[in-house]
């Protein structure tokens, strides 16, 4: 057991800090130009544009500690926007199961952020029970293409995406996990209709996607027909670990403390209120623990072991903590949290309510908490259900 940073780690941290400082957006600079420049410079550092990618695909090959340092340093820096769908979700599947042609065709554009991807998994009838999906893909007689018809839902950023990686059903005769096929489908074509879904916070980020008789060449199929579930499952685990957002919560809690200090109660601040203070303290204690749970998980992954039982709790604990911070922020906003769309009273109250409402989805997407617990009961504790 060793938790102190080595001299090399300190050096690395300084290098990260210097890099982030040099590459923040200059006032008045063109945003998209800066964004593209940032990723180019990060690539020139030796894979800093794709920190989680393996070395053979251009990743930096960092140690768990270095990843941890990167996460900590970047969470407070203003990096250019980036979507996880291509870089974090599809890329690992391509690397593991894609053909050489597919890797050469898709990976460079993903890395250079030239192409936006979205994830076509959930359907109106297939949420937590994803394997019951029904979007149909029928192979043509000559074996050259699939014809795809169905509906996907909760598709984040589908309205901005160029491509969708999509789970489709090619066989419904066996058990439902078999007969699922993983296809890559261009979004900008006839037969694809994207309808916005407005969520509680008033925002539009998720969509309904209707796919009607869209032809997809077989070259766009990842791996074998009927094996899509196996490919996607590994990725889901990956996604869930990433959703814990521990570093972000640590920063959010610090912000909350500052905000509570700006709220006066008579001649004291809200942070002097014993009830509020102990809720903040409880959060801090949970964060101290879960931060190390994440480190244990990272270390296990780096040594090539299967993710241990500790990784399975990361999404559950991480999202629960996010929601508690969001709720306390609304509480700190007091009467002003009720105002909508205008900043009145405490400056943070407006985004606090938006964050809280939007954050209710955190325990629903990527596997609802109830289902996560089922998975842990079965896979980790070895429990059976009658």
């Amino acid at each position, binding site marked *: 057991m060793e938790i102190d940073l080595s001299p090399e780690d300190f050096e690395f941290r300084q290098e990260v800090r210097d890099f982030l400082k040099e590459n923040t957006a200059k006032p008045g600079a063109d945003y998209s130009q800066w964004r593209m420049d940032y990723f180019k410079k990060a690539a020139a550092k030796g894979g800093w544009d794709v920190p989680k990618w393996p070395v053979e695909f251009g990743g930096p090959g960092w140690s768990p500690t270095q990843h941890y340092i990167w996460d900590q340093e970047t969470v407070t820096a203003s990096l250019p926007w980036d979507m996880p769908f291509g870089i974090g979700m599809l890329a690992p599947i391509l690397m593991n199961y894609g053909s050489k042609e597919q890797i050469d065709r898709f990976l460079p554009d993903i890395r250079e952020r030239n192409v936006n991807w979205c994830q076509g998994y959930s359907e109106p009838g297939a949420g937590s029970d994803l394997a019951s999906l029904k979007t149909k893909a029928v192979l043509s007689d000559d074996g050259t293409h699939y014809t795809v018809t169905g509906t996907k839902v909760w598709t984040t950023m589908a309205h901005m995406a160029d491509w969708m990686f999509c789970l489709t059903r090619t066989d419904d005769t066996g058990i439902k996990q078999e007969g699922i096929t993983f296809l890559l489908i261009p979004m900008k074509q006839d037969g694809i209709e994207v309808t916005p879904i407005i969520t509680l916070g008033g925002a539009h980020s998720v969509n309904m996607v209707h796919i009607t008789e869209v032809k997809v060449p077989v070259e766009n199929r990842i791996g074998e027909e009927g094996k899509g579930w196996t490919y996607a499952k590994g990725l889901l685990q990956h996604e869930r670990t990433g959703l814990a957002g521990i570093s972000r919560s640590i920063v959010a809690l610090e912000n909350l403390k500052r905000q509570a200090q700006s709220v*006066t109660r008579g001649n004291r601040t809200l942070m002097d209120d014993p009830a509020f203070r102990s809720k903040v303290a409880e959060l801090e204690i949970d964060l101290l623990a879960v931060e190390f749970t994440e480190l244990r998980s990272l270390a296990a992954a780096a040594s090539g072991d299967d993710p241990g039982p500790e990784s399975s709790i990361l999404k559950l604990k991480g999202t629960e903590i996010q929601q508690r911070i969001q709720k306390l922020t609304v509480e700190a906003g007091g*009467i002003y949290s009720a105002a909508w769309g205008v900043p009145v009273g405490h400056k943070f109250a407006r985004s606090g309510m938006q964050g809280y409402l939007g954050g209710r989805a955190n325990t629903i997407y990527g596997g609802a908490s109830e289902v996560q617990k089922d998975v842990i009961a079965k896979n980790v504790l070895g429990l059976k259900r009658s």
Partner: protein
Amino acid sequence: MNFDISEEQQLLQQSVERFVNENYDLATRRKLVDSPQGYSDDNWSQMAELGWLALSFDESDGGFGGNQIDTMIVMEQFGRGLVVEPYFANIVLGGGIMKRSSNLELKTSLLPGIITGDVRLTLAHAEEQSRFDLDDVVTTAREDGDHYVLNGKKSMVPNAATATHVIVSARTGGGQQDKDGIALLLIDSGDLDGNHFPTVDGGRASELSLDNVRVPAERIIGDFNLLATAAHDAVLALSAEALGCMEVLYKSTVDYTQEREQFDHPLSDFQVVQHRMVDMFMEYEQCKSLLYRATLEAVQDAPTAVRTSHALKHLIGKSASFIGENAVQLHGGMGMTEELAIGHYFKRLLVIESQFGNTDYHLTQFAA
């Protein structure tokens, strides 16, 4: 021992329930919420015609001599329908203060208009530094001959844009947190500068500035005790409304989980889901009991009435949060959409939590 409401009150309940069922489907409500005013004048006139605006006033003042139980009945049904007309601001807050005012001249001149719906009141008590403390008042009312001159800022005033008059708490003397030296004054809303905006539940609120506003001395309505009594009534009314919201949320969740199938079963087959809904139901019933208790104590003017109202708002806050969050959670992605009613009830509960003291505030008051 009898927890039944009277025959008249049953008729009232049915009448409000019918109004809500006929006028408040989600699409109609959305139109009202999106309109500039935020509610319907027709609905407001109908409420006056049905006598609901007169309920809580004495018969000698032209009312029906009702009490907090009648208000509870109306507000609970309003909660079930997410009614947006400003009954709370006008009748519970404004009317509640005016009917108890010792300024009889002012009272007699205003009550008839309140009952017809033409006079529309609201209460401006909150300030940025006060958080939930009614007695923390910085706004000043300086005596100047037979007038008072008011200066200060008031926050999150409900329905001020459509009010004809605003009741303002201001300090005529004493220190920032003294109960003595606080006066309630009636101000024509035309004399106030307002920043008007929507609230997260589709309601309306305002930030008001008082800049050397001159108010005749005969416009003094009362002192801090009147404000405290109004706050007591407000807690009861908001809690009744919250109970109506919670009932819809837990029942819709029970319905939805029986329809929605995943893993080849309705969600309601899963024990974890069943137990969660049993917890929601238990919270709801506990809130109902404490609402009845607190309301009856208020009607009887029991010595424990105020303390029980603190207990009530605390429990309502905790349970509303539990029921609201779990209703969204068990509806899954659908619970997150503007399209389903669930989210709208959840948002109304969030605003109720911020009005007249949140969960922590009332626990502190109860324990004090």
